[in-house]
């Protein structure tokens, strides 16, 4: 059994209530931080821990915190990004639903470290039932004296506000989220200025993912060094992986970073293997936006070594043979999955979710969806494959926010690794458009 930091008490009955959470040692980190530590020393521990942004970008959280501008007399804000919308990702949903006080405790510690007196948790609007769970937890924490004025006599005040989104993937991008929180359309902002200087209401702001913030109670209790001792190299600590698709045991798993991909897929502790009678064809390892990899490349690096569940190992080989850990949305496909259909599906998603602000993304996502639709429906031409590569390349890097890249990568990688499958769809339109038809040509299944 690997080390559990976030899900250690997940199976304790009633852990969603204050009393049970407290009995399991909950809020002791708040007591420790507010009574015995300074805000800067909390930041130091988080820096030492080396915890990297768990929403997908993987940027070191402590470093992000240290960028926060601190002009006199200007309020600072912490905003928790709970807009979890990346296809394949459902870990924050799980965490907030089952153990809401962990996030509340993390918010108190993180807000204290940053000197924020009003902090927000921006939750995707579809999760209204989770918003109610969080609001109940906040009321309980307040009644227990962990929120409000002069918390535990420390002189520190904090108010938490839970904010619902309205159904827009783009609001997971931090500047779009801030626009949304200000009551506007979720159009990402140009950077600079970065939120650390001008964020919410033009004030210095830190935006962190649910899982990132939820690591802080453990880090405060055990120290940043203890956290950094878990994992491998710059991939410190544990990571929640949302596992879905053609596996025996879909669900949310907490792994120590460094587990091999092979163990993660096949061991009973995690995914429990590919469903009976089927073989592994491909994996999208970090949410829909990261490059899809065929079975042989997700299990092994180009040099034949085993690929590990770390930021570095998953991206080893660049986009030629690698992918990214991203948000940890681990989507597994067996030989019944059609890569063309799935790529079209993802393209439709990105087209639907593009905010429309930048032309390459607004036009390009629609164009890719249209071309993929015609290939999938038996009307494609071989020229379309190069056209898709061309459009994807012209979106990539040419937009204000990373949604353009997120839309381009699945298309580019699907063609890179499954070009034969695209060609088969185009050359055999009648066969390929039969219900349930899937390319069965030569490819390495495991």
């Amino acid at each position, binding site marked *: 059994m690997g080390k559990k930091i976030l899900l250690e008490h997940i199976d304790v009955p009633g852990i969603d209530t204050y009393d049970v959470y407290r009995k399991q040692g909950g809020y002791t980190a708040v007591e420790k931080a507010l009574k015995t530590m300074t805000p800067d020393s909390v930041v130091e521990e988080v820096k030492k821990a080396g915890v990297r942004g768990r929403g997908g970008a993987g940027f070191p959280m402590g470093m992000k915190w240290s960028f926060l501008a601190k002009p006199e007399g200007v*309020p600072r804000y912490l905003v928790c990004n709970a807009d*979890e*919308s*990346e*296809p*394949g*990702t*459902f870990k*924050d*949903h799980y965490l907030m639903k089952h153990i809401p006080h962990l996030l509340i405790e993390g918010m108190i510690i993180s807000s204290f470290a940053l000197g924020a007196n*009003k902090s927000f948790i921006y939750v*995707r*609007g*579809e*999760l*209204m*039932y989770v918003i*109610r769970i969080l609001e109940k937890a906040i009321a309980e924490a307040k009644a227990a004296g962990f929120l409000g004025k002069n918390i535990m006599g420390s002189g520190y005040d904090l108010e938490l*506000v839970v*904010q*619902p*989104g*309205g*159904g*827009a*993937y783009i609001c997971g991008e931090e500047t779009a989220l801030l626009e*949304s*929180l*200000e*009551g*506007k*359309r*979720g159009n990402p902002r140009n950077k600079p200025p970065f939120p650390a200087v001008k964020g919410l*209401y033009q004030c210095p702001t830190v935006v962190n993912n649910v899982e990132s913030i939820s690591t802080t109670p453990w880090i405060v209790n055990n120290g940043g060094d203890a956290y950094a001792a878990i994992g491998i190299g710059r991939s410190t600590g544990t990571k929640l992986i*949302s*596992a*879905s*698709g*053609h596996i025996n045991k*879909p*669900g*949310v798993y907490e792994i120590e970073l460094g587990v091999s991909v092979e163990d993660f897929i096949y061991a009973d502790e995690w995914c429990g293997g590919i469903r009976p009678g089927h073989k592994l064809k491909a994996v*999208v390892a970090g949410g*829909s936006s990261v490059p899809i990899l065929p079975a042989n490349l997700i299990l092994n690096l180009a040099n034949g070594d085993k690929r590990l569940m770390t930021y570095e190992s998953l991206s080893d080989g660049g986009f030629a043979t690698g992918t990214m850990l991203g948000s940890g*949305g681990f*989507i597994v*496909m067996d030989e019944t*999955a059609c890569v063309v*259909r*799935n790529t079209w*599906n*993802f393209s*439709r*998603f990105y087209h*639907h*979710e593009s*905010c429309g602000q930048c032309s390459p993304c607004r036009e390009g996502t629609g164009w890719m969806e249209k071309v993929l639709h015609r290939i999938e429906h038996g009307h494609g031409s071989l020229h379309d494959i190069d056209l898709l590569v061309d459009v994807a390349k012209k979106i990539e890097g040419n937009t204000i926010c990373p949604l353009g890249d997120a839309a381009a990568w699945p298309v580019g990688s699907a063609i890179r690794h499954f070009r034969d499958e695209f060609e088969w769809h185009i050359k055999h339109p009648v066969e390929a458009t039969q219900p349930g038809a899937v390319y069965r040509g030569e490819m390495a299944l495991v």
Partner: protein
Amino acid sequence: MTTETNAKIEFTPERQVLAKEIIARYPEGKQKSALLPLLHLAQEQWGWTSPEVMDYVAGLLSIEPVEVYEVATFYTMFHLDPVGKHVIEYCRTGPCCLMGAEDVYAHLKQKLGIDAGQTTPDGKFTLKEVECLAACGMGPVFQIREQYYMHLTNQRVDEIIEELSK
């Protein structure tokens, strides 16, 4: 289901209290931040966000009606037309489709006799296609108001529809 044009648009007394509480959450002068929460509150009461409802919300926040329109039309959760009693929002994104969602939704459409974006003639059900609902390991999944329905099969769909039709 529909908003009477001659009826006064106003939150119920309980929601008026709640609306005030929501607006007070934000720093002074930043009351526009309450827009999404209030639109959700409005949709909870009227089922959809009609232009009249949007104007009412604009008035509560002392902002221009167009500021509400541009927001309500950007976010997919707000219904800009009247909807049925139960709005079934089904996830059409990749991971759910890998688990056979397309067949289950075809069955759902056939059972209700409507397509996505339509409402049954008796006004009971509206079907709406949505993108990923962050429940990929439990797919296929749909949502009706705040309730998630997961691990859907044709049989489970039949049971849910029959239960809600009572």
